[in-house]
Structure formats: structure tokens, C-alpha cells
């Protein structure tokens, strides 16, 4: 199933979507299919497959360390495509990568290759709206949804433009800060942002990420009216802590079962 279809169906059915971030790591190759199946069995809607980058400026300590480890293991573009072929057979999959690996490979070629390996979405955390047109065009040409990110503090007008330009879902960054951990800065009321995004693009699911780590934070996040959550650092921690797929499934289930708290 495609990413956009899966998330749209869930939104239509008022079923919150859980998307899990999984970093490609050559040393993890043998475990990937087990992890993806556990994610599916636990109720995840999709996987965001991360390609490591040497300068992950939007990532907090947990994921930044994971990027460094993965690169130390020799992870390269072919590993992304291999992992993608495995994971995308199990769950709808988006690739998440910083801009430079795409630039180096050539935008069109890179997106053609990930599309061929089963990706139906692409997320680029250091791509601002202004720089996105060539990426959107290349993604469209290969039937890949380019998911744009919106952040707290941007204007209503900008948020609406981003929501209208985004495909698959709108990735709303949940706090001022990098991935993982609680915000060091003040927490933000995301309800107005979610409402504005839904008003600007009524069909588009809105998912909130950065800092969602368990059922409690997921419930609180869903109370904003969002259609789902993205969990990254906490999932990375879970995978590193446990060897068994059943405990991964248990972790996923605990969050996937979360409903909006009031």
C-alpha cells in the first residue's frame, strides 16, 4: 500500500496513524525485516526509513549518535535501497534524508531509485519551502509524495502554503528543538497550527513528530487534533535495548493504541 493512501484512509476512519522512524544501518541488516514486521503487528501505519548523514543538524543526541554509528558501519546508498526493498513490502515506506545525499546522487536519479525500491514518500528535514520546487517536481515525476515539514513559530500564511504544497501528509514539528527529548524551550500549543493546516488542505493528514516517545506523549499530541504521530528517538532506543521482536511489537502497540486525551 502507498503511504498517502494508508494515511488518508486512516484519517477518514478517524484512526490515528503511527509512523516509526528507522535509521538504515548496515549492521542492522539481518534484523530489519523482523523489526518492520513487529512494527506492522504492533499497529504502525508506515515506516520512515532514515538515510544517515554526517551532519544531522535537525537531530538530537540520540539520533545524531545513531547516524554516526551507521556511517561508521559503512552504510551507503545501496544499503538504503536494499533495506527499502525489504521494509516497503511490509509497510508503506517514506525515505527520510538530508538534502546533500540526494544532491550528490542527482535529484532525479536518487528519487527514481528509491521509488523503484518501493518508497512512496520522501522527507527532507533541511528543505525549506523556498528550496522545495525542484524536489517536488522530481518526486511527482516518480510518483513519490514529497512530505514537507512545518514548524512552530512560522506564520499562518506560510503554514497554509506548506500544507497545500505537501503530499502524503504534513509533518508538523512539535516543539522548538531537535529530534527526541522534551523541548528545552517552552512547549507550544499546536492546536491552532493543526486547525490551520486542515483548513488549508482538508484532505491532508497532519502528523506531529519530534519529542513523541510513549503513550502519554502520544495521547497529549493527538489531543491537538492531529491525525497521527511520528516516533523516532524513542523507537531507536527501543530497538537498541531489546533483541526480541516481541518487545518491539509491545512498544509499538503501546503507542499505536493511544487515542487523544482530553
Amino acid at each position, binding site marked *: 500500500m502507498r503511504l498517502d493512501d494508508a494515511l488518508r484512509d486512516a484519517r477518514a476512519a478517524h484512526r490515528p496513524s503511527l509512523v516509526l522512524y528507522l535509521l538504515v544501518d548496515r549492521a542492522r541488516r539481518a534484523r530489519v525485516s523482523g523489526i518492520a514486521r513487529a512494527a506492522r503487528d504492533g499497529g504502525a501505519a508506515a515506516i520512515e526509513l532514515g538515510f544517515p548523514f554526517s*551532519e544531522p*543538524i535537525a537531530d538530537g543526541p540520540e539520533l545524531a549518535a545513531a547516524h554516526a554509528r551507521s556511517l561508521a558501519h559503512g552504510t551507503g546508498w545501496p544499503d538504503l535501497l536494499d533495506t527499502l526493498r525489504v521494509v516497503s513490502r511490509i509497510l508503506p515506506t517514506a525515505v527520510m534524508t538530508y538534502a546533500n545525499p540526494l544532491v550528490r*546522487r542527482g535529484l532525479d536519479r536518487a528519487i527514481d531509485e528509491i521509488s523503484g525500491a518501493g518508497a512512496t514518500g520522501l522527507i527532507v528535514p*533541511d528543505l525549506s519551502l523556498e528550496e522545495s520546487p525542484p524536489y517536488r517536481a522530481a518526486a511527482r515525476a516518480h510518483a513519490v509524495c514529497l512530505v514537507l515539514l512545518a514548524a512552530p513559530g512560522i506564520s499562518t500564511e506560510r503554514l497554509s502554503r506548506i500544507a497545500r504544497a505537501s503530499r502524503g501528509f504534513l509533518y508538523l514539528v512539535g516543539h522548538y528543538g531537535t529530534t527526541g527529548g522534551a523541548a528545552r*524551550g517552552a512547549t507550544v500549543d499546536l492546536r491552532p497550527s493543526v486547525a490551520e493546516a486542515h483548513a488549508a488542505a482538508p484532505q491532508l493528514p497532519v502528523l506531529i513528530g519530534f519529542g513523541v516517545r510513549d503513550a502519554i506523549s502520544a495521547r497529549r499530541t493527538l489531543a491537538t487534533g492531529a491525525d497521527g504521530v511520528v516516533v523516532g528517538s524513542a523507537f531507536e532506543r527501543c530497538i537498541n535495548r531489546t533483541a526480541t521482536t516481541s518487545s518491539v511489537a509491545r512498544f509499538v502497540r503501546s503507542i499505536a493504541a493511544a487515542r487523544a486525551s482530553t
Partner: protein
Amino acid sequence: MPRRFGPYGGAYVPETLVPALEELDRAWRSARRDPEFRGELGRLQRTLGGRPTPLYFAKRLTRRGRGAEIWLKREDLLHGGAHKFNNALGQGLLAVRMGKPRLIAETGAGQHGVATAMIGAALGLETEVYMGTVDMARQRPNVERMRLLGARVIPVREGSRTLKDAINAALRDWITNVRTTHYLLGSAVGPHPFPTLVAELQSVIGREIRRQSRRAFGRLPDVVVACVGGGSNAIGTFHPLRSTSVEFLGVEAGGPKGHRVGAASLERGLPGVLHGSYSYVLQDRNGQVAATESISAGLDYPGVGPEHAYLKDTGRARYVAVHDEEALAAFHWLAEDEGILPALEPAHAIFAAVREARRRPAKERIVVTLSGRGDKDLEVVIRAAR
């Protein structure tokens, strides 16, 4: 202000930073036209900074070159001991104008950190400076200076523990504290509007060269030479002369002889996105940023400002790489010929200038921007001499 230089530049950043970049762009556009702001900037450049810095005829160094005359633009005499003051002062005043009470900065050689700490103190702003632990070890005097000036120095232990990693850490801080903090970026790199803003603030160098060379030898120089780390002293030297026929020579760090890339991004890099802009980047075929090496912490950076990428592609400027050993030799030439201890960064430019002078007739004039003084580097130089 231009967002792009040909294909280079732009703003490849997480959306969280966009409001702050837009605010900075607006603040600078209004400030540069505001007589009061310009008056304050000019006054502090003179009374706090010591501008204008002199243009000095290096007679004995010229004799060593046995060719064109070599003149030095003495940014080493500026407050703090490097050109970094020009940029830190301007951005510090902008931070006050935007109502941001906190400054953060990255630093490699420590010169930009020192300049930011000085401005933070003078303007009453809280200042925190990120610095890789490799650089903290090799530029220790500057770490002490920053602390004495009231700044907090935050060690960065990730990656190569040098300038690039300090920028990563500063960007993460900015993403987290963007509402109260101005990121006082130290070179003509990063997302728009930084490359343009920093170039304009450093252009005081080139404007003074234009005026002083007319007064000193009745015309513009034939060529200007400057070292290129991120490229701020070089773009400040080049910019005001861009519609003249003066030749531009940028000098990158070649690293130790035999090192594959050194830190010569323009010479040995490929176009890519690093720290928010599209420019030349030292990288592998997966787009992972390469490990650099240079004896000078201030040039030890795998990227370069986007305007330099454009000047290179269009042929308006030439760029060459100078090795560690050559820069060290030039350090000693300047010390013994002129009684000036240069920083290791501009020592690269001095070497290239002497080589250039050899190829040119005695009637030609070369102006080299001596971007900083060498006190911070004595330990490294003495160790290398053993």
C-alpha cells in the same frame, strides 16, 4: 539582497529557522539604510575597533619575492586581532535592534569567538561559543580570552571536533532557542541572508583598500590576495572591487603535503549542500562530508561561502591551495622580514602572494589581506619548528 549567486546559496534549513532568517533579513535591510544605525556602526568601528586599519608596504618581503610590490592590509591590528570584529560588531548591533538578549557563535581558530565575546560584553548580551575540542586544544589562548571576556565556551565532542561540528552544535542550539537568540555566524557561509550580510559587513576591508591604495600608489592594486576558510575576509576584500579589473586570488588550506583533500573545498570539492547553502563541499560519493585537515583551525572547514563558488565558476576569481609546510614557511618570512607574527590562516595568503610576486614585474602591486595576528598560534608554530 541576493538569495543566490548563480546556482549557489539559498537556504536549506529546517523550517524552525525560517522565521529567524526572515527576521534577520528584514532587520538588516532596514538597518543598512538607517542613518542612525550606520552612524553607530561607523563610530564603533573607529572608536572600539580601531578602524581604518593601515595599508603597509612590506619592503623586505617584496625583496624576498623579487618581483611585484607586496602591500599588507593590516586587519591583524584590528581590535581582537582579526577581521572577525567587523562582522561581530555589525551582527551584534543587529541583535540589539531585533531585541535578542543572547548571542551564540561557533569558532574554529577562536578569533570569531573572541570577537563575539568582546561585542557581547560591550553590548551587554549573554554570549555562548561552541568550539570543537580539537580546536580548543590547539588555540588555547583564545579559549582563555573568551572566558575572560565573560563568554561561556561550550566544548563540542562530535564528528571531527573542529569548526564544522561547532557549526552543527550552534545550529542545534539556535533551532531550540531561536526566539531569544541570535546566531552570530562567523563567516560568509550558511543560509541566506548570512553570506550576503557577512560580505557586506566585511566589505569595509575592500573599501579601505580601494581608498588607501589610491592614496599610497595612485591607483588600484593589480591583484588582491586573501585566505579562504568560509571566505569572509576574502569576500570582504574582493566585493568592493568586483566591478574593477583588479584580479582576485583566494588561498585555501591544502593541509599537510600528501593529504588527499586538506581543506581545499573549491579546488577539491563538489557542489553540495552544507550548513544551509549550496556551494562547493568536500564529500564522498554518498554525499557524506569529508574529514578535513589543516594546520590552521580557521581554514579547517569542508565548505566555503556560496559567492566564492560563483566567482570560481565564472572565472572572476582564482583559487589555489597552500600546504601546511608552505604556510609555516611564510609565517617565518613575515616574522623575520617585517617583524610581524601573522596568524596561520593569512600565512597561507602570504605564501601565495610571494609566489605570485615572483611571476609579476616590479611595477605591479599586490595587496594581501593580513586577516589576523599570530599570538594564538605560537604553540603550534614552535612545536612544528622542533
